[in-house]
């Protein structure tokens, strides 16, 4: 109510009020960055903060389309060689110039970061060599054909070779065998603004763990003067207090307001923006003999029968989940990445048809259903536990009795990877923004050696699909790769190898004087927050 009045007043005195507002920006985040070292922990919480301070060779816009960043243009010279033109006239926060040497240094440091809980090496491992043709031209050679290289380069932040004490000559070597790096600073050092030096629009001012992170404007940024003089990012991990902080005016914008509070925020005159995310919530089923947690189905695993899997899919009323549990902030999913993202085919959502589902179960020889344990995390995805319960409710209607086994993410992921669940619910965000990401991780045949199917805890396996997928992953031509990915995706879904539920919608709430272009990758980036109008 108070905010409603404020917005009215703001409307009347818009011109007078704006300059004061336009200086500072306070954002309430749902989790805290664990380190200011942009190469320490591959975690969205960290990345979204680092993106304000550090930049990368390529950029991804709000719908994850790859565009120029510190590299202005690039070309594939042959299947494994790329040439990048680097942006000229770029300065680091401490005044040093940005050159190809900084890029090589940055990629060299990645494997040398100690104690990383989730290293960035998954993006540098494919790089065989990097050389500077001149200060602003870079040649990159990859081990194998990698069409995703430009997209992946978005993940490696460029840090300053000079600031971090490199020698004049930095020579690239794969897997941490570079030369001329000097004494490489480790992650804790980056919590100081003297070390956390990037080329981004904001400089690190201070980092007080547990309470706030302050950024100040970098006036010499190549892209022009950023919108805010000072940006404060405050982690407020509990949902209620985060909403309350926005209502009370402590912060100007928050990420992920709980869905049930959105009407209240809207009534308060706040602006809500939302976007479909690249995150799919799905059910995965154990498709091997000897699956645990199934009772009343005899000796065989009913989930190995495609009819049973289809029945499960048809029994789920995705619309009801999106409306009732997700408050409308989710979209029923027909595949693993929302169309029109790269590699999606626009496949229609499986219709809710419990009668047909019952028939299928009977055909498969389970007229009375069976009992099964459904694993789900309870603090990872939006209303995850509630969604799992709703799924259990719907499966019960066709005779499949479900025990929902909900645990915190820490236990859930360990147990899932230990194959403890016959069926589980989880989510997947496609970091590269293309279909190859979910296909490779979730449904490609699990293989420790090649690294395929790392998150395929259902152990779905379709060699024909694997082959199409591998072909797609080594095809540089976009149109051809797109159609191959569509083909592979369709093969999986025709098999009911995995059951898509819905795409999460990411929501931001802010004062009406602000504007934010919602991002599919769910990042909250201060650089993208603009004064409205």
């Amino acid at each position, binding site marked *: 109510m108070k905010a409603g009045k404020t917005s009215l007043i703001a409307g009347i005195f818009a011109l007078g009020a704006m300059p004061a507002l336009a200086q500072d920006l306070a954002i309430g985040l749902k989790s805290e960055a664990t380190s200011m070292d942009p190469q320490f922990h591959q975690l969205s919480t960290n990345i979204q903060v680092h993106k304000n301070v550090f930049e990368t060779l390529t950029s991804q816009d709000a719908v994850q389309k790859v565009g120029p960043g510190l590299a202005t243009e690039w070309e594939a010279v042959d299947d494994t060689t790329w040439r990048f033109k680097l942006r000229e006239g770029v300065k680091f926060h401490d005044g040093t110039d940005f050159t190809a040497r900084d890029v090589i240094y940055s990629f060299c440091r990645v494997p040398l970061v*100690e104690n990383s809980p989730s*290293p960035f090496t998954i993006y540098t491992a494919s790089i065989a060599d990097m050389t500077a043709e001149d200060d602003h031209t870079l040649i990159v050679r990859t081990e194998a054909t990698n069409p995703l290289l430009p997209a992946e380069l978005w993940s490696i932040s460029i840090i300053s070779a000079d600031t971090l004490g490199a020698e004049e000559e930095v020579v690239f070597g794969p897997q941490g065998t570079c030369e001329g790096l000097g004494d490489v600073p480790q992650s804790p050092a980056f919590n100081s603004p003297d070390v956390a030096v990037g080329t981004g629009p904001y400089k690190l001012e201070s980092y007080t763990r547990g309470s706030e992170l302050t950024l100040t404007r970098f006036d010499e940024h190549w892209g022009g003067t950023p919108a805010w003089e000072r940006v404060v990012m405050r982690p407020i991990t509990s949902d209620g207090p985060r909403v309350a902080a926005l209502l009370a005016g402590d912060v100007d914008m928050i990420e992920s307001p709980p869905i049930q509070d959105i009407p209240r925020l809207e009534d308060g005159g706040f602006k809500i923006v939302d976007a479909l995310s690249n995150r799919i919530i799905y059910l995965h089923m154990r498709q091997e003999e000897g699956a645990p947690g199934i009772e009343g189905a005899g000796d065989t695993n009913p989930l190995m029968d495609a009819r049973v899997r289809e029945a499960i899919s048809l029994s789920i009323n995705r619309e009801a989940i999106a409306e009732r549990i997700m408050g409308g902030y989710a979209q029923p999913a027909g595949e693993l990445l929302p169309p029109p993202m790269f590699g999606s085919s626009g496949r229609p959502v499986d219709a809710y048809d419990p009668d047909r589902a019952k028939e299928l179960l009977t055909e498969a020889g389970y007229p009375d259903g069976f009992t099964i344990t459904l694993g789900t995390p309870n603090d990872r995805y939006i209303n995850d536990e509630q969604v799992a319960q709703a799924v259990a409710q719907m499966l019960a209607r066709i005779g499949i009795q479900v025990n929902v086994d909900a645990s915190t993410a820490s236990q859930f992921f360990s147990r899932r990877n230990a194959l403890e669940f016959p069926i589980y619910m989880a989510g997947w965000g496609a970091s590269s923004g293309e279909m190859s990401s979910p296909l490779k991780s979730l449904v490609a045949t699990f293989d420790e050696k090649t690294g395929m199917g790392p998150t395929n805890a259902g152990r779905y396996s379709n060699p024909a699909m694997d082959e199409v997928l591998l072909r797609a992953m080594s095809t540089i031509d976009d149109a051809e790769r797109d159609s191959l990915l569509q083909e592979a995706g369709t093969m999986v879904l025709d098999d009911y190898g995995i059951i898509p539920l819905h795409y999460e919608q990411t929501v931001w709430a802010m004062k009406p004087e602000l504007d934010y272009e919602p991002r599919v990758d769910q990042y909250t980036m201060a650089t993208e927050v603009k004064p409205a109008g």
Partner: protein
Amino acid sequence: MIVYLVRRAGQSVLAVVAMAVLVFLGVYAIGNPVDVLINPEATQAQIAATTQRLGLDKPLWQQFGIFLGNAIHGDLGTSFVYGRPALDIILERLPATMELAVVALILSVGLGVPLGVWAGLRPHGLAGKTIMGGSILGFSLPNFWQGMLLILVFAVLLGWLPAGGRGQTTEFMGLEVSFLTLDGLSHLILPAINLALFKMSLIIRLARANTREVCLQDYVKFARAKGLSGRRVVMVHVLKNIMIPVVTIIGLELGSMVAFAIVTETVFAWPGMGKLLIDSINLLDRPVIVAYLMLTVLIIVTINFLVDVIYSLLDPRIRLSEMKG
């Protein structure tokens, strides 16, 4: 006396060591932190490399050996999540929790003792009954539910106080504190009340029971009969006699305040150790969990030791019986 102190200190050290073993084995036996921390797109080889880097590939006893070796030098491990010494991370959060606990303790003792004594002196009066009724309520409302109601009433409906967070802090004797600024103070009030209410109810009941008991003692009856004013009897005899249980409570409850702060900090998003613990449990950041528990064990054992010492100074009988036994 010295013998008693030495023996008591020995027991404390033993308790700490026993807890170290239990805590370490318990925490390191479950889950796999790498599953939670690593990017799910990582290959098996990368997962194996990370597991090795975090030292999780070694057998449990070896990990424990390394932990003990480091612990002796005051190093309780490096946080998996933050990549910094776990103890540092906890100590950063310690002032916030201590501030909350101390303010809550002052509130509960400062209000609890007088109210309890009053209720004890007039057990059948209206005030006495109201105080006791209130204390039953304070005792019965679960901590988190109280916190929710406080937020609902004072932050959401009335809008008088902020719903969470710590607000502005200033430096005071080298520590970041929030009670010196208006903004900080307004953030502190609700969580402090929330944390204090339960203890206050306990102290009221304790003070009342002791007051009543003391009042029945012959010397108090005698003092009254002698014509000493009620006020003087209360000040001198009653208060003196309820000091021992109150000191015990203050000591013991400070430890449990720190623990109960877990709930309050979760409800009010107070950036203290308790919240760090919950976050660390969710992320399986084992070194931080272990370091938190070890630090808490150390604090509690130390407090108990000090309380015992003060106790034995206040009441010579305890000292004697302990020395005999």
